């Protein structure tokens, strides 16, 4: 929890780790991470927003929204909202397998 503003969330989940890249800005990396997650979520009409650098808010087109603290919970909440599993092994099946 942020002691200054009393925001809940954050935590030390491994996916919140900032890569030790020269000139890295943790907040910027977090926003990039949320933008990338939206590349996965938007086709399912879900949206992920950063919440004060502490948590994420996952929202659906029906108006449902949920505060989640890390990416392990993002995918669980997304599956709950969608009512079906999100399987990384079958996503982007049309993409070429080699980058």
């Amino acid at each position, binding site marked *: 929890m942020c002691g200054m503003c009393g925001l809940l969330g954050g935590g*030390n989940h*491994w*996916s919140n*780790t900032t*890569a*030790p*890249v*020269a000139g*890295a800005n943790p907040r910027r*990396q977090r926003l*990039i*991470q949320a*933008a*990338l*997650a939206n*590349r*996965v979520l938007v086709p399912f009409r879900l949206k992920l927003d950063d919440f004060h650098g502490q948590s994420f808010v996952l929202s659906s087109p029906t108006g449902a929204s949920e505060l989640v603290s*890390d*990416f*392990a919970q*993002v*995918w*669980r909440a997304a*599956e709950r909202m969608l009512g079906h*599993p*999100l*399987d*990384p*092994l079958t*996503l*982007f*099946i049309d*993409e*070429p*397998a*080699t*980058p």
Partner: protein
Amino acid sequence: MSLSYDILPLTLVTGFLGSGKSTLLADVLRGDAAQDTAVLVNEFGDVGLDHLLIGEVNARTVLLDNGCVCCSIRGELKDALAALFSQRARGEVPPFTRVVLETTGLATPAPIVATLLADPVIRSHYALNATITVVDAVNAAEQRARHPEWLAQVTAADRLLISKPDLVDETRLTELAASLAALNPAAEILIRGDVSSAKGIDRHAGRALLDMLFASASSIDLIGRLGRAQRLANEDMTMNGLLAHRGERYSTGAASIQSFCMRIDAPIDWQVFTIWFTMLLNRHGDKILRVKGLLSIAGSDQPALLHAVQHLVHPVLHLDAWPSASLNPGRRSQLVFITEGLSRDAIETSYARFQHHLEEAVH
């Protein structure tokens, strides 16, 4: 000795019933060298560890709200560790600097690791140093066939210690070591005692065992073992009757268990990797028994050490520098996966697709 609120290293000792965990601890912790070691056992042992601190932990499982058994919290383990730390701080027990936790023979390590990683009090005071699994040389084959806990214990290990080597012949010992290496390529394999001479395997006894318990997993050793896993994966190689074929799974004996080394040549984008890997563990965490390896991150000279047991990922460590270039030319990312029913191809293809799809957004 300092009583500062530092983080104490904790070594988890596991192994199937009767594999020799208590005997190992009795041998290791005898004498002055082990004076500053606290021991937690989850049943009363009849070993005379008078000078040591023995706490009792009864298995009580409190499920987290996601209902996943492997992420369940062992409430009494948490209470025992927290109480031990506060007793130490108050001076009620001798000031120990390290802790050994011995599990029951039927325990699977994942819930214990979950407790250590997830609880805010415990993770502030204890750090999981290494998981050591004792493997019974005599009964290994039978236990593997009949008890799934045996496999969970072997795949979760950082070090595998083969006990009772004097009760089996040299051929069986070498075969067992080879099959353990195939099941868990990321683990170091050691043989108890100083009996006869299987080549290429370290022998540890007495004082060396204590060092073995508390040595943290070195990245250089890991690179060496990843190299071994890679050789096994790339070469058709006969290993004491076990065949490992190119691009196929190792012959591990258990039909659906596969272990393989996934290699990514180009430096990875950390954000893309976290999205892919959290998603993979969310959906397939129960089929991924173990992941361990080094990642080369784009824009960084520091390799990241990734270590996961089922859904649980340990805090990512960024090493200061890459180990010597001869062990890992080209600084490739290498991840050893031990999976149940998930093929190497499916995982590699999935990552490649994610990378392709998401990196368009970055650049």
